[in-house]
């Protein structure tokens, strides 16, 4: 069954088209990595997919047209992990994570059951020891994981992540991506943006390479990541190595 089906998705501010008739499909439980230069429309695409922005075109999640649902219903289908989160108040980690229950709760306060749920997700991500810490004191990697935990507590069908590995060290990058790989086994479809073609090749099933709001190439790493495409999109000469079916992309400096 198809997880996510996007057809002719178009979005623009005033006259300027930011996303130009994008069509792609991701199967249930797959990871899609969106690559492209800064300003190519990656974040805009993610925001369209959870209806923070209102795009034209059709967008189905497991055959539901989510553009017809209200915000609360959408939030039960789609979880979103932003690139930046600036904490203002020193809330406890567990309280932040439990806020993911919001679309299931409405106006009532989270119950013990909801807190158990949140603790369970924290356990799964190996964050149990952080539960009662103020989330203003976390490191970048920990904060990212806490936000992922919150999105998982939402119990979404699709998880959108805006550059989940940015500003993280190598260990945390791999940790985050491994966690994403693990949750797809529960039938969650993951769509994330990123900047590292090699990591995308290792950790994702499909890659969408975009530039100026258009799809340049879409498919498996071996079809998308080649020297011509990278040169076209980034204007950089690269050398590509292949090992165990993964592609490793390095820039060539002359």
């Amino acid at each position: 069954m198809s997880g996510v089906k996007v057809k002719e998705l178009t979005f623009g501010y005033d006259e300027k088209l930011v996303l130009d008739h994008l069509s792609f499909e991701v199967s249930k439980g797959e990871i899609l990595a969106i690559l492209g230069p800064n300003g190519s429309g990656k974040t805009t695409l993610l925001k369209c997919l959870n209806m923070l922005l209102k795009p034209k075109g059709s967008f189905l999640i497991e055959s539901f047209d989510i553009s017809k649902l209200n915000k609360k219903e959408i939030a039960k289908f789609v979880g979103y992990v932003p690139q930046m989160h600036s904490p203002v108040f020193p809330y406890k980690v567990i309280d932040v994570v439990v806020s993911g229950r919001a679309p299931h709760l409405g106006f009532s306060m989270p119950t013990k059951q909801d807190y158990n749920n949140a603790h369970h997700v924290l356990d799964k991500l190996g964050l149990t020891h952080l539960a009662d810490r103020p989330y203003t004191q976390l490191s970048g990697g920990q904060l990212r994981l806490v936000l992922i935990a919150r999105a998982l507590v939402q119990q979404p069908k699709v998880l959108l992540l805006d550059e989940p590995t940015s500003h993280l060290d190598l260990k945390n990058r791999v940790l985050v991506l491994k966690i994403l790989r693990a949750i797809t086994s529960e039938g969650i479809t993951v769509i994330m943006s990123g900047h590292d073609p090699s990591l995308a090749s290792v950790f994702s099933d499909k890659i969408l390479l975009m530039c100026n709001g258009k799809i340049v190439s879409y498919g498996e790493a071996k079809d998308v990541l080649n020297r011509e495409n990278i040169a076209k999109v980034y204007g950089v000469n690269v050398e590509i190595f292949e090992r165990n079916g993964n592609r490793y992309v390095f820039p060539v400096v002359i």
Partner: protein
Amino acid sequence: MLFGACMGISGASLQTTLRNPLVSPYILGISSGAAFGAALSIAFWGTGYFFFTQPSAVLWSLIAIFLTFSLSRFRGHYSSVSLVLAGIIVSALFSGLLALIQILIEPEKTHTIVAWTVGRLHTVGWRDVATSTPLAILGILGLLVFRWRIFLLSMGDEEAKSLGIDVERERVFVVFFASIATASVVSVTGIIGWVCLISPHITRFIVGSNPKILLPASISVGASFMLVADLISRTIWTFEIPVGIITTLVGAPLFLYLMRRAMHEWS
């Protein structure tokens, strides 16, 4: 105490919702609107008709908050920042109008207006308490019902939206309830400064930032703060000093102290 309760919870709600620990109900123009309304009624009907002063103050503070909302609309959206900026503009506008009234009318009326803007409790009678209580309770209950949503709103607009919240509409509700709670008491006491700004900070210091506990607790902290301030204002001198002067004089240094402690904790 009712005054303190209203101010405590309104301040706490607005600070959390707008993600800004420096916001108070006054910053959104509520107080200057109320002051203008009171001054207008004093100018027209004189000081004897306090019956008119209160409704006029409530009315104008609601007009002020409405104006703040309309000005902050940008491309059909209300953001927290534009709301605060618009509030400052509206406050300035009404302060200007207030000054204009003060210049135009008789000196003895001006004196009443000045006393009103400083904020005092000794002229407040039981009848005033009776008239402001229903509105105040409506505002407080509204905010308490919303406290889980207020927590969600404090995650920031985009994240709250992705959690399925109609951010703009719910923020309007929060500001509305905070406004009526504030207007209900400010309209009888005048502008007693700093309580709304400082009570939430004291409360946060004691019970933490989560609105689940912060909001109910800020009610009692606000009320206690007012009680103490009132006690001081009655006993410190041979006559009663307007309590607004006390809250400001005590509030400013206390705020500085809390600010330093909080900065240490947050950074």
